[in-house]
């Protein structure tokens, strides 16, 4: 392996994208935990009258409150997919070009089944990851719609009532509830795979994927950036046509 190790720092994840990621992660954890508690309330017994305690009601309140944050955050991310940089652009989430489909195959070959060792280097997500985030995005939309449809009967607000049309599609609330709950497991499995793969990529490729979602910067071999820009894999037409902001190495005092 004769790879150049002249690294360049590239600003990939803008601040709004990072905020979205962590708010979203927190929401998924809170919604997952409270959702699981709602489905399987533990036997926390006490001898007080029912009117003096409200813990299960509080768990449900947290679930509903977080749902609003989850939705607003996701709506913001949709907006940012039009306003953000090319790595956040909505086009990436539909990896349908020939090159992108080939990259999905390459990722399966190189990273998942490891038949081959030719690295798949991308500045932002690879096409396989983009595709996965499209799927989780659709699942997020389903959770928001089904969740508010299930919440509507307990609310007097106009907003959840916008989703009451969902129940007839599923026949009954019990059926809808089952699908809403099942999605919790999909998110749980996604989280396991997501966290594992981030560590995997950081470990194998050394681009600083893990820290990039905190600070926004990734490290890339200079040659690879040129290759990527030449193939246009992540370079979707975006508003900002300015060259990648390469951080100048400031001379030490």
């Amino acid at each position: 392996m004769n790879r150049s190790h002249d690294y360049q720092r590239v600003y990939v994840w803008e601040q709004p994208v990072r905020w979205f990621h962590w708010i979203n992660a927190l929401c998924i954890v809170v919604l997952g935990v409270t959702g699981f508690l709602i489905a399987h309330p533990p036997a926390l017994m006490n001898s007080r009258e029912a009117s003096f305690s409200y813990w299960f009601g509080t768990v449900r309140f947290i679930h509903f409150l977080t749902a609003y944050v989850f939705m607003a955050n996701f709506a913001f991310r949709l907006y940012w997919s039009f306003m953000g940089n090319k790595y956040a652009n909505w086009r990436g989430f539909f990896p349908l070009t020939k090159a992108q489909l080939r990259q999905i195959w390459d990722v399966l070959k190189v990273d998942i089944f490891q038949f081959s060792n030719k690295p798949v280097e991308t500045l932002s997500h690879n096409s396989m990851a983009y595709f996965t985030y499209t799927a989780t995005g659709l699942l997020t939309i389903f959770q928001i719609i089904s969740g508010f449809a299930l919440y509507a009967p307990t609310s007097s607000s106009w907003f959840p009532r916008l989703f009451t049309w969902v129940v007839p599609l599923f026949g009954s609330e019990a059926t809808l509830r089952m699908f809403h709950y099942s999605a919790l497991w999909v998110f749980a499995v996604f989280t396991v795979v997501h966290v594992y793969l981030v560590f995997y990529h950081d470990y194998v490729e050394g681009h600083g994927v893990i820290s990039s979602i905190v600070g926004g910067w990734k490290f890339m071999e200079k040659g690879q950036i040129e290759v990527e820009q030449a193939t246009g894999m992540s370079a979707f037409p975006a508003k900002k046509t300015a060259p990648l902001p390469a951080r100048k190495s400031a001379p030490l005092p």
Partner: protein
Amino acid sequence: MNSLTKMNETVPTIYEQMVSRGVDRRDFLKFCAWMGAYLGLEHSATAQIAHAIETKRRLPVVWMHFQECTCCSESFLRSSHPIVADILLDKVSLDYTETLQAAAGFQSEEILQETITKYKGEYLLLIEGSIPLGADGAYCVIAGKSALDTVREVAAGAKAIIAWGNCASAGCVQAANPNPTQAMPVSAILKDKTVINVQGCPPIAEVMAGVLVHVLTFDRLPQLDSLGRPKAFYSRRVHDTCARRANYDAGLFVETFDDENARQGYCLYKVGCKGPTTYNSCSTMKWNNGTSYPIQSGHGCIGCSEAKFWDNGPFYQRLTNFPGFGIEATADKVGLTVGGVVAAGALTHAVLTNFRKHEEIGEQPGEKATPPTPPSVKP
């Protein structure tokens, strides 16, 4: 009401029939007040109901029975107010019903034909039971005609169509997986008509009476929810008016039916109560003259006023079985299995990575050869 006045003027009004059967004025007004209250109307509506029953002549009724168990009829007979059963279900009003009519064979079919032609657009069609489509409808044939043909024929000239119970509203147990007779609810057959789904297995007698009184009094269909159920009776969840609700919010649950919590009257959520996803009036109107209802007597709601409640089982488990994974496969079992497989896969992958990606990981040849030169430090 021009159409109804065109009918035989010598026929007594509903009120006159009540009087002739020994109902006094006081009981009659009590009945009107009850019905107004059940329908959620304001107090002044009592007079409107009384006026309607006093002046309206018999409403021709055709009550069809298809794939059903007659529990809807039985429930209706047990209405807490005798006037309903006595008068509305009286043979005078009921032109055709397989279960109660004296006529049989050709005679009864003649009556049916006579009713639907003579009172075209005026008669009320009440349907009990689902309609099978399998084997060309051979599973339910009455007088040589399939239920499908009959319901289409009878519905054509009906003033209003009411589907009694879960069978007619959603298919009930006959339509449960695998639905061998391909049982269909009435609304799936009569797609171009509005069907009032009076849900439940069976529906509460007072709810059935209330819907009939509404149609009789206001001469129009009651307001329906998105699943075709009258809002007056099906807009609230059993859970919302449940006597055990406070225990739910406090997190006090019955764990098993024979534990101390069950004796304390705690919430039945964890032993499978479907109250939180069931829309009905059980917890407000109750059953058998307001005596009790399932949750009050210590058994969870089974959700009988909801579509597919047989398939959304088991009754004693909160989570329903997941479709496509066989019996006893809940979302938790499927999720845990998939999660376990994925976690094991990730672990294997991590081990494999250290062998297969050995070259990429760690100190690279280039890095070792040329250690970074420290920048010249200016004093």
